[in-house]
């Protein structure tokens, strides 16, 4: 390695302490989401030092795995979610992932994407960005993409999505430092994400959503993902309807006002 790398600000792995299963008290919770077979478990292992078995096939992880790491002066709890292609339909693994991002309220959601199949991976990314505003895109398998003659303008991608994008080759450990740095920045709020919101072209649908969002905001003024919830209600999602009735939704507003004073503006 180039000796200059060690002193460079980007080289942060000496600030990383892998805590394995020690997650006793943590400052921030980080969720690891993404399509199946994009290397989530590899990223998980690289950060926590755990040796969760990884496998080269979609559907390998169907339960949540948890681990911890410390970076800078902060302790992080990392939750590896099952890989899914979307958050819309209702298989159990998609529900586990969706419920965690929604109700578990992670401080940062790391979306692991396969650089060789970016378009498909963006489908999930855009859906996640409707639920949470604090996310980092880990553009994994960048080495494989390069081998296939694919290059990705990660800065342009970051501008388009409104969240940090970190090119990675997690199997080789490349990009782990940069990912840690971005997780830290988003968690502490020194990087403010402005995630792209998918606009509805259908006017009728948009009006219906607006109506419901107004009502939801009258109930919970600081709810961060009201229009996503409105869409789910329009679709008749039983789980979300139940969450409104039993008070789980009102839980989501806890502490929200402090972290995001600009919340009203997003929905102007």
């Amino acid at each position, binding site marked *: 390695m180039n000796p200059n790398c060690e002193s460079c600000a980007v080289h942060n792995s000496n600030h990383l302490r892998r805590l394995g299963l020690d997650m006793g008290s943590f400052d921030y919770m980080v969720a690891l989401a993404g399509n199946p*077979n994009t290397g989530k478990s590899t990223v998980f292992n690289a950060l926590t030092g755990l*040796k969760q*078995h990884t*496998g*080269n*096939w*979609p*559907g390998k992880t*169907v*339960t949540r795995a948890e681990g911890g790491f410390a970076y800078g002066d902060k302790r992080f709890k990392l939750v590896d979610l*099952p890989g899914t292609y*979307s958050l*819309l*339909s209702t*298989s*159990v*693994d998609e529900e*586990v992932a969706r419920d965690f991002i929604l109700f578990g309220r992670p401080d940062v959601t790391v979306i692991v994407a396969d650089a*060789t199949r*970016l*378009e498909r991976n*963006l*489908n999930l*990314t*855009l*859906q996640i960005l409707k639920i949470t505003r604090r996310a980092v895109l880990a553009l994994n398998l960048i080495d*494989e993409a390069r081998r*296939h*003659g*694919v*290059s*990705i*303008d*990660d800065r*342009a*991608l970051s501008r*388009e*999505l409104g969240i940090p994008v970190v090119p990675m080759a997690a*199997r080789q450990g490349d990009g782990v430092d940069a990912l840690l740095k971005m997780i830290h920045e988003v968690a502490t709020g020194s990087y403010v994400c402005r995630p*792209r919101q*998918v*606009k*509805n072209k259908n006017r*009728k*649908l948009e009006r*219906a959503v607006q109506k*419901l969002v107004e*009502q939801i905001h*009258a*109930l919970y003024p600081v709810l961060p993902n009201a229009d996503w919830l*409105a*869409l789910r*209600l*329009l*679709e*008749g999602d039983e789980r979300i*309807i139940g969450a*409104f*009735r039993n008070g789980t939704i*009102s839980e989501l507003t806890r502490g929200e006002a402090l972290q995001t004073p600009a919340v009203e503006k997003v929905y102007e």
Partner: protein
Amino acid sequence: MNKSSGPHEENNRAIEELLSNARDLRWTVGDDIHDQLLKNIYEQAADISDKVVRHDGKKRYDWDQKLDRFLTGRWTGLPMMLILLSLVFWITIVGSNYPSAMLSGLLIDSLHPLLKNFFSGFLPAWMSGLLIDGMYLTSAWVVAVMLPPMAIFFPLFTLLEDFGYLPRIAFNLDGLFRKAGAHGKQALTMTMGYGCNAAGVVATRIIDSPRERLIAIITNNFSLCNGRWPTQILIASLFIGAVAPPALSGIVAAGAVIAVALLGIFFTFITSWGLSKTILRGEASAFSLELPPYRPPRFWQTLYTSLIDRTAIVLWRAVIFAMPAGAVIWLISNITVGDLSLAEWFIRALDPLGGLVGLNGVILLAFIVAIPANEIVIPSILMLTVLSLNLHGMGTGAGVLFEPDSLNSYMQLFHQANWTLLTAVNLMLFSLLHNPCSTTIYTIYKETGSWKWTMVSTFLPLALGFIVIFFVTQWARIAF
């Protein structure tokens, strides 16, 4: 407490209003929101991707596709699958012979008498019997019988997995599953079951439709799990391989194991088909399966993780279950009621049923003792056979049964207990077709939340097992 009930009720009213509003609005927006949303997202994803992704346009030699054409080809896919799996078993069978004999020589022939002598010095006889003849000996058998095949099989299987071969198996079998009215992804959960059925049952979460998920759960037990591979491998090497000329015995034994595994796949299809035509009626749903790129496995890391994580964990679990099972076996063999030990009462009670289906009371009792973990079937059979033959002096000097060459000594023991080729075949079949282990049963209950389906998953394979070995036995007795 009542203080907040006013605003609380108001809140509830507002929520109900919101929900009923949503219900009303649902009619105005049409029933294709789901598709519209998806379309919206897909368009934007394509749009972003167009802006940021550049292809260099060079045509590369695409060995991925060439290999896929071969490994998932219409005519080559299934034969290649058989060849690859046979190779894995053959290496496992041939490779585990020698270390098994060594471990058995060390742990059972040398260490056992030493321990026995040492502890008999100051412990009461019943206690050294319980600890050494019961708990230690069963655990030692678990290690000697299971460790070598596991230490070879797991890394090989993990290498195939990391290379990206498992989804190809699913791809090859997808059409067959569809014909059976089941979900194509069941091929993946079935493959998971080859590691551990409890894990396979959890893995069925990737199947969306509850009907197809239940089928996958119920049939997962037909995938031979970690705990049963060593049973298959040992019995196949001892009895089936022995029928063939020595030069071919490894290949024949591997072939027998493959045959049992294929029979499991056959039963998976038949049962799936039967269920989807009767109590779980319905059409197979469509799905897309992603074939991941082949990735060269990182050899040493795979070796390390599969040895440390898989082999050690499975072995540990086996030993944990073997110790109490060993204690139970020793106790029921030494507690006498009337003039017989409890074990002998059980064995005598089970012998008629065992005889009817071509097994014996000892084997059936061993399968009952081994409900917590399939790993201890063979050690339990060994223990119970020794005890039921009244060979209590075994390994202590008097009437030494065990030669240093472990495989031969197992053979001697089984012959003394009147085992035949038929007993061995039936044992292999019954090991494939019987109730899942208690961990899996509990997992099935947790995943389905239903006692009914848990019971179906438990007793359906058991009933099938008895039916199959009954007919095999009757046929064999008439034919030979």
